[in-house]
C-alpha cells in the first residue's frame, strides 16, 4: 500500500463504506417521514369528517371550550384543532421512527428522551384541557345554583369553583411533567388551605351577624315564604 493510496484512497473508501451503510438508512428514514406526513394528512381529514359527523364542536361549545379559544385568539373550531393535533402527532411519531433509523447515537439519544417525555406532555395537555372544561361547567353550575338560591355572592362562588378546579388541574399537569413535584403539591396545599382559612376567617368576622340571624331563623322558625303553587 503506497502513501497515496493510504492518505487519499483509504479515507474515500471508508467514507464510501459508511455512506453505503448510511444512505439506505437515510433513504428509509425519508421514506418513513414521507409516509408519516401523508398518513398524518389522511388521518387529519378522516378525523375532521368524523368529528363533524358526531357534532364535537357543539359538544365542546356547550362546555365553553369555543369561548375559551376565542378569548385566546383561536378562531378555528375544536374539530379542526383536534384533527390537526392527530395529524401532527402521527407525523411526529413517524419522524421519531425515521430519526432512529439513521442510527446516529446522539440523535438516537435525543429521540429516546423525547419519546419518553412525549406521553407526559400529551397527558399534561389533556389534563389541562379537561380541567378547563370541567372547571367551566361546574363553575357555571355553581353560579346558576347560587343565583337560584338568591345568594348575593353568586358570581364569587362560581368563580371560586372554577378557579379551584383549574388550579387542581394545573397542579396535576405539572406533577405529570415532573416539574417541581413536591414544590407544586405543597404550593397547591398552601394556597388551597390558605384560601379556605381566609374564607373561614372572613365569614367568621364579617358574617357573624348573618350567622346569628341564620341561626335565629333556624331556631325560631323561618320568615313567611311565598305560598304560590307553581304547577
Amino acid at each position: 500500500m503506497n502513501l497515496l493510496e493510504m492518505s487519499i484512497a483509504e479515507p474515500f473508501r471508508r467514507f464510501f463504506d459508511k455512506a453505503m451503510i448510511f444512505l439506505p438508512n437515510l433513504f428509509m428514514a425519508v421514506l418513513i417521514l414521507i409516509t408519516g406526513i401523508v398518513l398524518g394528512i389522511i388521518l387529519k381529514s378522516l378525523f375532521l369528517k368524523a368529528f363533524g359527523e358526531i357534532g364535537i364542536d357543539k359538544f365542546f361549545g356547550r362546555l365553553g371550550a369555543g369561548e375559551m379559544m376565542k378569548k385566546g385568539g383561536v378562531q378555528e373550531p375544536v374539530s379542526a384543532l383536534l384533527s390537526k393535533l392527530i395529524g401532527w402527532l402521527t407525523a411526529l411519531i413517524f419522524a421519531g421512527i425515521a430519526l432512529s433509523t439513521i442510527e446516529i447515537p446522539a440523535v438516537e439519544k435525543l429521540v429516546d428522551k423525547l419519546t419518553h417525555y412525549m406521553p407526559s406532555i400529551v397527558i399534561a395537555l389533556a389534563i389541562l384541557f379537561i380541567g378547563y372544561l370541567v372547571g367551566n361547567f361546574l363553575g357555571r353550575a355553581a353560579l346558576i345554583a347560587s343565583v337560584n338560591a338568591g345568594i348575593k355572592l353568586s358570581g364569587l362562588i362560581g368563580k371560586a369553583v372554577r378557579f379551584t378546579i383549574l388550579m387542581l388541574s394545573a397542579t396535576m399537569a405539572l406533577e405529570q411533567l415532573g416539574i417541581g413535584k413536591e414544590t407544586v403539591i405543597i404550593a397547591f396545599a398552601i394556597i388551597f388551605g390558605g384560601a379556605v382559612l381566609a374564607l373561614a376567617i372572613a365569614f367568621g368576622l364579617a358574617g357573624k351577624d348573618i350567622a346569628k340571624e341564620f341561626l335565629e331563623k333556624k331556631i325560631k322558625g323561618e320568615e313567611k315564604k311565598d305560598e304560590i303553587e307553581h304547577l
Partner: protein
Amino acid sequence: MQEAAIDYESFFLEHSVVPFKLTTPYHGIPGKGSAFKIMFEIAKALNVKACAVVDSDLRSIMPGWIDLLIRPVLKAGFDYVAPLYHRHKYDGTITNSIVYPLTRALYGKRIRQPIGGEFGFSGKLAKFYLTKDVWESDVARFGIDIWMTTTAIANNFKICQSFLGAKLHDPKDPGKDLSEMLYQVVGAAFDLVETYSDAWKQTGASEAVPTFGFQYAVGLEPISVDVDRMIEKFRLGVKELMDIWAKVLPEETAAFLQKIVERDKEEFHIADEIWADIIYNFAIAWHKKTVSREHLLKSLTPLYIGKTASFVIENRDSDAYAVEEKIEQLCKVFENKKTFLAEKWQ
C-alpha cells in the same frame, strides 16, 4: 211528585270501613311518572275500560270528581279527560305562563290545565302510553303530566276536560326546589316539542275542547306573595346570568332585561311579547343544544320569577275573570309568534 224526587236508596248506601289498598314493590327512578307507569300496567293487565288518577295531597277532592273523570271515557267515548279547576289567581304560574300557552299554541287544543295532576283516560290510551320508552327520563318525575296530555293530543286521541271545582291541597313541601321543578316540567315540554315537531308545525289555530261538569264559583284561600324578594332574585339573575342568556336571547330582549332591572317596583313589567320570545328562544336553544340543557333551563328560573312578579303586580286588583282574560291574551301572543318558532326550528 215530592216522593218521586227523593231517592231513599241513597240513605242506605253502605260504605266499606276497610279501604282497599294495593301495594307493589318498585325499583327504578322514584317519582310520580314511575307510579303512573304502574297504574298503566295494572290498567293493561286488568283490561280496564277507563281509569282515573288523582294527586295524593288533595283537600278538596269530592266523590263526584271520579265520576267526572271516568264518565266522559265510559259514556262519551273520550280517551283523555283533563281537569279544569278554579284556582287562586296567583296559583299555577308555570301552567299559566309557560305550559298552557305553549301547549295551546303548538298543538291547537285549549286544555286549560295540561299539568293539573288529576286525569281520566281510556284503557286504550293507557296501553298506548306503555308503548313509549320514556320511563328513564324526566317523564318519570314531574314531567309525566305534560307528557300524558301532549302525547294524547299529538296522537289524535279524543280529548276533553271536566270541571272539578276548587283545587285545594296540603301545603307544599318547602324543600321542593323551584328550579328543579321548572327544569323537569319545561324540559319534558321541550322534549315533546322536539318529538312532535311534525305534528305542531302542521297544526293551525287553537280550538276549544268539550268540557264536562257544571261550572260554579268557589271560595279560595288567600295567598301571600313577596314581590320585592321576587324582583330581587330577578335582578340577581340579570346581573350574574346575562352571559348565558346572551347566547340564547336576541339582542333586543337581552337589552330590555338589562333596562328593566333599573325600574321601580310599580313600573316593573315584562310584556307578553317579550315573555313569548324568551320561551321560544329557550326552546330553540334546547333543540340546538346551544348551552348545556340543564344549565339552560335552570338559568330560566330568575326570568320565570321576574315574569311571575310582573304578573302579580299587574293583577293585584284584578278579579279571576280579568286574570283569565290576561292569560288568554298571553296565549294569543304565543299563537301569533308560533311561525317564528317554526322558522327557527331546523
